[in-house]
């Protein structure tokens, strides 16, 4: 059920992934950041999040772009669960009827 090469690949994947998880903490935990570095760290979470979802903003499918616009508006005024439901429903319906 478990091949040797597969097991080795999985263990190495897990190892490098854990290194990426602890790396930032290990390097920075005992340092005091300058004002400039603090400003960069405060911008970091949003920069990572928006980069991950950037492909949705340049979809070639008009149904996807319209659904994203609806989701964007919902996200500026509603809380998490209604926003997610509106996003999923609008994407599903618009793709069905337009895309």
């Amino acid at each position, binding site marked *: *059920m*478990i*091949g040797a*090469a*597969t*097991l*080795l*690949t*999985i263990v*190495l*994947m*897990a190892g*490098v*992934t854990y*290194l*990426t*998880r*602890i*790396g*930032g*903490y290990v390097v*920075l*935990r005992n340092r005091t*950041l300058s004002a*400039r570095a603090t*400003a*960069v*760290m*405060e*911008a*970091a*979470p*949003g*920069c*990572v*999040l*928006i*980069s*991950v*979802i*950037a*492909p*949705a903003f*340049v979809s070639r499918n008009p149904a996807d772009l319209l659904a*994203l616009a609806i*989701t*964007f508006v919902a*996200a*500026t005024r509603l*809380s*998490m*669960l209604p*926003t*997610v439901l*509106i*996003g*999923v429903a609008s*994407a*599903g319906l618009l*793709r069905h009827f337009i895309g």
Partner: protein
Amino acid sequence: MSVSEATLPEAIDGGSGSEFRRGVVSCVPVLLGTIPYALVLGAQATQKGLSAVELPLMTGLNFAGGSEFAAIQLWTSPPHIALIVAITFLVNSRHFLMGAALVPFLGHLPQRKVFPALFFLCDESWALGLADAKQRADAGITPAFSLRYYMGAALAMYLAWVGFTATGALLGPMLGDVQHYGFDMAFPAVFLVLMRGMWKGTAAARPWLVSLVVAALVYLFVPGAWYVAAGAVSGLASAWLMAGDA
């Protein structure tokens, strides 16, 4: 439930069980988007020849969905080990930044708690935990970072990811394309709501716009998963330059 709604009443109550439960509950909308992807990853993995034991071993030990999708796309029999491990590292290199952003909130925790907790760091648990910590900090609650809230969200994600990737491997190719149904829009929805919670005005958000534009352009014109790293790094570079102006 928004992160802000979730934060205040039970934080004052302060029981450890309620903090853990608050984390689990805040993760429920996220699971709605995660579970369809877990099923699809499982189904794809069996088509590439991984067994219903090997795949949950991967998702349970590695627990980083983006890199697992990439690994399965590249999977051959036998696997090209160096290529898959290198791609895994590249896709997950954003964790360095995410961990760094948590450091200011982890000072009150001993390393023996931090290192196991960081094993469960993923986009969702990190974003929920950090957004919650920022709101508790604004509300004057100490410590701002609630480890039990974070672990509640993280373990809910972990169990759902491992359980539903295994389920997908067992059900196999009878599952269709989830993109048809719109579940993929759950991720932009979750991330946009979290970013609203981090909003500190237009000037502070300019690096986010730089990240968005660069990531989108790189996504369109450069093959592979470089767009996340390119977008994040260019946003940080612009934050560094703008901080120098002030």
